[in-house]
């Protein structure tokens, strides 16, 4: 992430880590919300996987903003770290 740029870091856990790698940076505007970042992530990953599956995966993933669970409508600021815990299964 470049200093001064309005960006957030998106980290991936689970299935999307295989698709997108461990993390990406996403540009944001003023008053952006987590939902906006998710839309951006959706657009970026669309070429890499089936759209319907991607939509479901992002709808179900757990969202951790700066170490705390946060709902989609939470405001997100430059320098924030959004962790997307996408489907994985163990036992």
């Amino acid at each position, binding site marked *: 992430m470049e200093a001064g740029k309005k960006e957030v870091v998106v*980290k991936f*856990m*689970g*299935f999307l*880590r*295989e698709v997108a790698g461990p993390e990406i940076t996403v540009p944001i505007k003023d008053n952006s919300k987590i939902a906006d970042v998710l839309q951006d992530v959706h657009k970026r990953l669309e070429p890499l996987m089936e759209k319907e*599956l991607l939509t479901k*995966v992002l*709808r*179900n*993933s*757990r*969202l*951790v903003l700066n*170490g*705390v*669970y946060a*709902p*989609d409508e939470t405001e997100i600021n430059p320098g924030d770290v959004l*962790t997307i*815990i*996408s*489907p*994985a*299964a*163990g*036992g």
Partner: protein
Amino acid sequence: MRSETILKVDLTKGSISKETVDPAVLRNYMGGKGLAAYYLFNEIPPRVPAFSAENKVAIMCGPLIGTVAPSSVKFCVATKSPLTGGWTDGYASGTWADMLRAAGYYGIIIGGIAEKPTYLYIEDDKVELRDASDLWGANTYETTRLLKERHRSDIEPMVLTIGPAAEKLALITTVIAEYRAAGRGGVAAVLGFKKLKAIVVKGHKEIPVANPEKLEEAAKVAREKLIKNPITGVRGRHQQMGTSNIVLGVNAAGALPTRNFQTGVFEYAEDISGESFRDTLWMGGQRRRPCPRCINQCTHVAIIESGKWAGIVDEGPDYENLTMLGSNCGISDKNTIATAEFLCDLYGLEGISAGNTIGFLMECFEKGLITKEDTDGVNLRFGNEDALIEALVRGGTVTGKLGKLVAMGVRRAADTIGQGSQKFAMHVKGLEMPAYEPRAAFGMGLCYARSDRGACHLRPWTFGAECLGLAPREPPYLPYDIQGKGAWVKTLNDVFAAVDCTGVCLFITFGVDAVEDILPMVNAATGFNYTAEEYVKVGERASNLTRAFWFREVSDFGRDYDTLPWRCLHEPLPSGPAKGKTVPLEPMLNDYYKAAGWDANGKPTKAKLQELGLDFVINKIY
């Protein structure tokens, strides 16, 4: 009418009989968990000690084992637990149960005590007890090798064995069947007490299936779903990393047990992640050792090529062992973790309980509650790799003070050490807590609290839905939801208990529906034509029977037993997304009891027992 044969072994008399399972019993209890519960509830006299001739061990198949159904390998091993004093059942995968069914048997009930070390030899209709004196003391791998050499003929014999830890009655022991562990709660120690070292089986018969064409049809549907699923499918997460693929997700959710559950965030999670194992010891996920007919293929073989543990080759570690022997003991070295799991398998120690107990002892050591006097000189600090290995060797051989503390499990170790250590002895009903921090996923807390074998991660496994994106971001699936969680967990419990009666691996439910996809296979295999409701009732019936077992066996059993360690209820997590959380258990427990048809003390009501056809239980617990 469908029928199945079980073997009944009386080690005291040295006798073996064959019994046909009553068709009505077979339909109501199906197999696995259900049938094991039926036989043990009826055949173990009330309140006999777990270590007694009267206690029995049930080994039970389900109707799908050995058929074309995917992952149709999971058999049940159950008994009255010497660790908890109540019910315990566990499941092993691999190839052993296929062979038992090919020999013509659906299960084995073992009672009595042999005069000397003995093993059971089964070759189709020939079933004999043989002298195992020369095998007593041998580790599980050596026993397996020797018995395979001794009995190899046109086919390779399959071997189920106990290790030296169980011979010495270590309470945290497991059975090892063809290198796969089965059972928590000291089931292997009961066999050790009975002096039954092993069961060797060879079979040449066809496994009975009511409608082979329909079974293939239903299995094909299931296989295709599994293959396409990103978790269970080809090059999916299980094929790459097994169950350990979840380490980073669990850590991000703040639920990775770390240093005896003192926190749920491990600073070295990347080092012990499934990704890290895949890229090193598992050679990119290419070293798999899958079960027969399995698409998931979650088992990976670790080969340690350098360092002080070089030369060790073993399956695993799976997520549970990796975490409990890794982060829970403060260990971040993959070679050490793989070696630790190898030692568990070798001695027949159960890895979750071993990692939990050693983590607890490490905390006691760091807090000064025990010293080198108590550990035979071992510097038992978190992160000390040699200390972990030493503790396992001593626990596996029940040697010295440290070995005895490890072998007795965490509850007894805490009672021995005292000084308030019970507050951070992480168990439920005496069974050590597995690798999900319940303060970070309240549903798991409820699962642990009321599971029928003590703290169990699979009865049901809600963590994936709560924290790993396997369910929508809405109530009651969110990790800190309380409302609705009891009823949800109850429904899942019954469904997964039904799966435990079928003989397929629970892990296929990550790719297929546990009812819609598995039931057609069950009906094709059995011809029982269960409705979905009847099928789930098989699971509910089994769960109520095992619940009744607790009430019968433990005089003051009830709600007070359905609890969590003090730490989970009173000590807020210090870090991660769940920082500040404790588990609000009581309201969830109330909801669960209500949904289950149990009274306020957690006892199945007479009406519920009658509804499930468990009338014979009523006068045993009322």
